[in-house]
């Protein structure tokens, strides 16, 4: 990030209002110039720039492939249906798609008895498991803008992976003065949105686990063996603040990160007995929150759930993609990655179907594989994504009319193909 918040966007730049689908902040306040290459205007967000570099001013031409050979859409759909229909236990993973894509994938999962996990399933499960065990008290972008007088970034500077976080939550004109504390993280060099805030960096007292445990214990009034002057000062600040927001990042935590999430929940709950506080989890990228929300409302259970003959089974640990593949507990993989060619399927010898960005062609070019290029919501097609704070859903508009089908269309085609094959007596 080399953003200089003071410098206005170049005067010559024009563009259309656009909603960025490339991280769960879903920024909708910047515009996009479509030519000569899609370029964000009004933000120097590196994450968006990197993602946009995989798109041209016009739709890419891409062809479906079966075993690496170019085929038409219908043959690719039939080959995908053959793989999934013949599988005793398919895994749907990646799941980087929008609401419509997930709706259709859930129907397809019912048609072939699949287990569903997301590419960021490990990070998603950190927040999901903490929520299932203890609950959560969270806040949203506009609440932070208007209310937060203390923001504590725990183990993350927020901007490395969510470059516009501070601008999206920058204090409103009539909001209280804000102090931002980075705990165990280095503030980025120049951060748009922090101009009006005072900032401070302090170290962990030990590691992140020790630190949150210490804060939680001291807030709860327990005397702890260890003492750390910087943390003590932070605790006093939190108790005096009118509205503390604890920001954390689910993918930046070490193993057992759910313990950190639970400690943050204890911290927030204790503060809420006397003053006000809330947590904000940065996570859910690549459509992770979207996939989890849709899965949960349709089935009643979050991701890492299988649609089995014996019913729905939710296994937050056992149904991790890496573990299922390593244990050979699945015999076919459907990988969905509509936003980026960088989200490639894991290495596996299993029969493979990829619904992906055209740049993923090489990821499914071997024998026993099907590649179907799909449109990217917010670039080639409309769609909806959930923002990081949970309840806000943003509509995405395309910047050009794509030649490629969306994930929803392809999933529906495959499901229809499987159903038709079954009806003809080709049941597995």
């Amino acid at each position: 990030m080399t953003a200089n918040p003071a410098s206005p966007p170049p005067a010559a730049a024009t563009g259309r209002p656009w909603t960025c689908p490339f991280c769960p902040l879903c920024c909708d306040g910047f515009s996009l110039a479509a030519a000569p290459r899609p370029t964000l205007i009004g933000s120097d967000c590196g994450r968006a720039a990197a993602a946009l570099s995989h798109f041209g001013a016009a739709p890419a031409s891409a062809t479906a492939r079966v075993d690496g050979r170019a085929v038409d859409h219908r043959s690719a759909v039939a080959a995908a249906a053959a793989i999934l229909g013949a599988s005793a236990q398919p895994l749907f993973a990646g799941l980087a798609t929008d609401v419509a894509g997930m709706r259709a994938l859930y129907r397809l999962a019912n048609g072939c008895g699949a287990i569903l996990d997301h590419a960021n399933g490990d990070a998603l499960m950190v927040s999901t498991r903490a929520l299932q065990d203890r609950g959560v008290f969270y806040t949203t972008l506009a609440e932070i803008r208007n209310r937060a007088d203390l923001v504590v970034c725990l183990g993350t500077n927020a901007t490395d992976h969510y470059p516009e976080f501070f601008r999206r939550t920058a204090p409103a004109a009539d909001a209280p003065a804000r102090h931002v504390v980075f705990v165990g993280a280095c503030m980025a060099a120049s951060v748009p949105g922090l101009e009006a805030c005072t900032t401070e960096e302090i170290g962990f007292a030990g590691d992140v686990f020790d630190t949150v445990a210490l804060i939680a214990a001291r807030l709860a009034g327990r005397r702890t063996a260890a003492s750390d002057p910087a943390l003590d000062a932070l605790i006093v600040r939190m108790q005096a603040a009118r509205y503390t927001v604890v920001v954390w990042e689910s993918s930046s935590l070490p193993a057992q990160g759910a313990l950190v999430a639970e400690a943050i929940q204890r911290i927030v709950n204790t503060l809420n007995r006397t003053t006000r506080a809330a947590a904000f989890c940065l996570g859910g990228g690549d459509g992770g929150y979207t996939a989890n929300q849709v899965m949960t409302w349709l089935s009643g259970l979050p991701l890492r759930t299988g649609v089995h003959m014996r019913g729905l089974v939710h296994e937050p640990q056992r149904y991790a993609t890496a573990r299922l593949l390593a244990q050979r507990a699945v015999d076919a993989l459907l990988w969905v990655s509509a936003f980026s060619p960088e989200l490639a399927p894991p290495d596996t010898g299993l029969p493979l179907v990829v619904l992906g960005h055209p740049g993923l062609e090489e990821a499914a070019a071997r024998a026993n594989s099907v590649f179907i290029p799909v449109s990217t919501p917010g670039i080639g097609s409309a769609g909806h994504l959930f923002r990081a704070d949970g309840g806000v859903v943003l509509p995405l508009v395309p910047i050009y009319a794509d030649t490629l089908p969306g994930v929803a269309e392809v999933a529906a085609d495959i499901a229809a193909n499987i159903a038709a094959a079954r009806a003809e007596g080709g049941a597995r």
Partner: protein
Amino acid sequence: MSTLRLKGGRIIDPANGIDGEVRDIGVRDGRIVALHPAEKVDREFDVSGMVVMAGGIDMHTHIGGGKVNLARMLLPEDHRANRAPDNPLELASAGCCTPGTLATGYRYAEMGYTAAFEPAMAPSNARHAHMEMGDTPILDHGAYVMLGNDELMLRMLAEGQDFERIRDYVGWTIHATRAMGVKVVNPGGISAFKFNQRKLDVDEDHTHWRITPRQVVQTLARALTELGIPHPLHIHASNLGVPGNIGSTLATIAALEGLRGHLTHVQFHAYGTEGARKFSSAARELAEAVNANPNVSIDVGQITFGQTVTASGDTMRQHANADLGSPRKWIGADIECDAGCGIVPFRYREESFVNALQWAIGLELFLLVDDPWRVVLTTDHPNGGPFTSYPHLIRLLMDKSFRDEQLAKLHPEVAVNALLRGIGRELSLNEIAIMTRAAPARLLGLADRGQLGEGAAADIAVYREDPDREAMFTTPEYVFKDGELVVQRGRLVATPVGGTHFLEPEFDPAIERMLAKYADEHLATAWRHAAIGRDELCACANGGRLLACPLHGRGGRK
């Protein structure tokens, strides 16, 4: 063109004054029509000896949106115990207290319900709410948008802005979120909690904005009246669950000053402080107030015993109750300067004095209000219990001896002393049809639903007579949605996508300039995303029909 005839049923159609008359019902292209007895039809159903009613309408049930989905996430234990569907028409969907949307649609339809309304849609969560409702098959649906805790309205009140501007803002919000009405939850209290206020009575000042719940209720009720919104202001009153809250509930009714208002889940708002335990039934006081104020309607929010989860926008009260939760975990949230959310799992126990009394208070309210047109049957799903307990609840209301049997099992002090013991009233089928169909349709302004007259939508439930009313209402013989057979002998035979009911009120578009400025300065979403367009609504709602509903009078500016 498709036609069908239901032959020889006993019609219970209170909206048209028909109570048990035996006659045929004709349907053409999804609408009820008069068919000549000799006219050939595509399908005829012999329903002689059976009871024919309009499809059920649940006016207050938390079926879709952020907090419902969080409740699902919070309670995987509720969803783990499940079987694969034995019906190939069904997709897998699990849960008892907060089932997946698919199961919600399936189970409602299997009980003869054809519409359900989400009562607590946060403006910032409207797209999500419409998505979940669109994925609730078979049922038509709609939502009440929450206002009265949005910082903007409180600010406008605090600044003494013209009523007309607030009214236009209310109209715009209904339009933008594609709502069917407005709900106010703990008026001003959700916002006050964000400013660390823990209690807010009807005439108490909001700690920051210095306005009172009374002002909020009055302003919203007046705005809806002037906008011509058919559904009266849906009011979740102050002090939910607090012993002695009958005072604030009666004060809220008084605050309406004769304007129409619908007090929701009143069971949670009818508590006195008498007796050794300082917790008593105030059902009689509340029922008397409802009887005396024809501008007031209610739904009950009956509790049923067992595990459930309470999901509410009332962060202030849910935070206060979180320590009583079981299992001991909860979710809370401050949301986008327009709402809040609190989710607390709860187990209602027969041995608990408080829970037993809550159970009795709910039934007392049903039975002490004289006019069934102003009482709607609800459990405030899932807050008092899951909607699947409706047939049991119907039996409790229709069968005094069954009710007494259940009462006798409860905490002994309640079993012996409850006001309920002395109430002999047994509701008739006609009264049940009013409380579960005709009244909610009328309170929502759905002229062509909740009734079986010519021209009405052919949403029809046919029940086999059974003196055990619980059994009767659990498994209808046939259910039709817009003339399509969707359930036969309690089993789904079709799962069409339901339609979305919404309103298009008039408002002065000049209000949008102010709203755009406010959004820019205070909110976190671009102004161009503030309103859901018609096409977008269709996509959110999964391609279901868009059912724009008529307003009262001309609506809009006078």
